[in-house]
């Protein structure tokens, strides 16, 4: 078995009286595609937010690539090698698709304040390098025709891909995708499927995603983690999960009238 890239241990988070994540344990291996599924309110997005330090856990540990993530400020997460997208899309709506990606590349910029002010040689060379890298990502996510349009004017599916491209720009080891297919049309989901595979197979990215579109999840995942009410209720390959009675009841309703 390969080494775990991301390891979550006994993770809990309470909001007031509500325990959103309750003693969650799981790991993601290098090069895997892992999906978290579960009904609404099961704590999937909360788990993502805990891993990316949007808020601190009430208890538990998160380690990534040997680094303890608990207590890190949000902006350090990207430097640690974690890229993420958001359920409700947090793209920069008033920037173009290309500019969104360029912002993702900001942390690789090295020119000093004075070089920036005078647009000196090093600054210009760097801008060219960043632009080239942005072009590469634009092409990779099939955004070429819309690269110079404001993101606010793009269809939902394109906005989702801009957000993924932006996350990729930080050169992450792992990509956390929060409902990447939400709001996409079936053909777009089909493309997304191919794209996520390419990210793993060609770029060597590890992928952890929360998703509701079962066909996508079942097709693409190496492993699936099923959550309900903040806990992990099942884990396994798509086939194992599909036939697990607990999972069926969590999705179809656990009570029988």
């Amino acid at each position, binding site marked *: 078995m390969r080494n775990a890239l991301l390891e979550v241990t006994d993770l809990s988070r309470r909001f007031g*009286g*509500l325990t959103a994540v309750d003693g969650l344990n799981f790991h993601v291996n290098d090069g895997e595609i892992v999906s978290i599924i579960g*009904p*609404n*309110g099961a704590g999937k997005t909360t788990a993502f937010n805990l891993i990316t330090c949007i808020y601190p856990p009430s208890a538990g540990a998160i380690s990534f690539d040997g680094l303890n993530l608990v207590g890190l400020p949000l902006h350090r997460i990207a430097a640690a090698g974690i890229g993420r997208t958001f359920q409700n899309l947090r793209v920069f709506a008033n920037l173009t698709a290309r500019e969104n990606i360029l912002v993702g590349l900001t942390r690789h910029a090295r020119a000093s304040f004075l070089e920036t002010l005078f647009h000196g040689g090093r600054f210009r060379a760097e801008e060219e390098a960043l632009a080239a890298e942005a072009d590469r990502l634009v092409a990779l996510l099939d955004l070429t025709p819309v690269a110079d349009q404001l993101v*606010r*004017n*793009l*269809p*939902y599916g394109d906005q989702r891909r801009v957000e993924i491209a932006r996350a990729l720009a930080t050169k992450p080891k792992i990509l956390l995708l929060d*409902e990447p297919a*939400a*709001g996409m*049309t*079936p053909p777009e989901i089909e493309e997304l499927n191919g794209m996520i595979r390419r990210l793993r197979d060609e770029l060597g990215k590890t992928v952890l995603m929360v998703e*509701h*579109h*079962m*066909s996508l*999840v*079942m097709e693409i995942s190496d492993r699936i983690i099923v959550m309900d*009410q903040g806990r992990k209720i099942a884990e396994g390959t798509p086939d194992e999960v599909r036939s697990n009675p607990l999972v*069926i009841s969590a*999705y*179809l*309703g*656990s*009570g029988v*009238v």
Partner: protein
Amino acid sequence: MLLETRDLHVSYGPIVAVRGVSLAIPQGQIVSIVGANGAGKSTIVRAISGELAPARGEIVYRGSTLTGLPAFQVARRGIVQCPEGRRVFAGLTVMENLRLGAYGRGQLAQAAETLERIFTIFPRLKERRTQLAGTLSGGEQQMLAIGRAMMAAPEILLLDEPSLGLAPILVQTMFEAIRAINAGGTSVLLIEQNAFMALNIAHYAYVLRTGTVVAEGKGMDLLKDEDTIRAYLG
């Protein structure tokens, strides 16, 4: 027909959330809309309530159109929405929350009677009536949200995800309560991700996927339909 949507289209800016949905809610029935997250269920409810303007299509209530009415006017006509996530007024007591339901629609005269009914359905609320709503458990808050909407004496109750985040045992209670409310003569439009329960309770149901109706029928028939279940579960 009590309430109908005809070829309803709703967009959020460039994003089309609901495309061409026509549903009908007959007097005295429970109608469910089921579908995955982001399928457009809540959008339909918000459009009926007058919170969102349809890009196209019509919402017809007792033969006259609701399109263009502000949300509070829609509520005053008897179409009361109990929104997703409960949204009780946390800083107000349980009684204040309930009374507001009657105040908004000007139903204060009948309030005492309605209140008794609600306390019969949700005895927990009676026990906690002087408590601040924010201190209630999730399940109790959901009861309060439904009770508050009932205080407005609705013709149609629009319930958006009433089982969201509730423990299984409470989900059961909640659906029994919905049945009881319906038995009292209130029509119900129920939005649910918990498809099994929602189909079980519904007289009629619609399955929604990416903003369009992909299946409809009697709740029990849909439940027995293997294909629908599989399409829905993946």
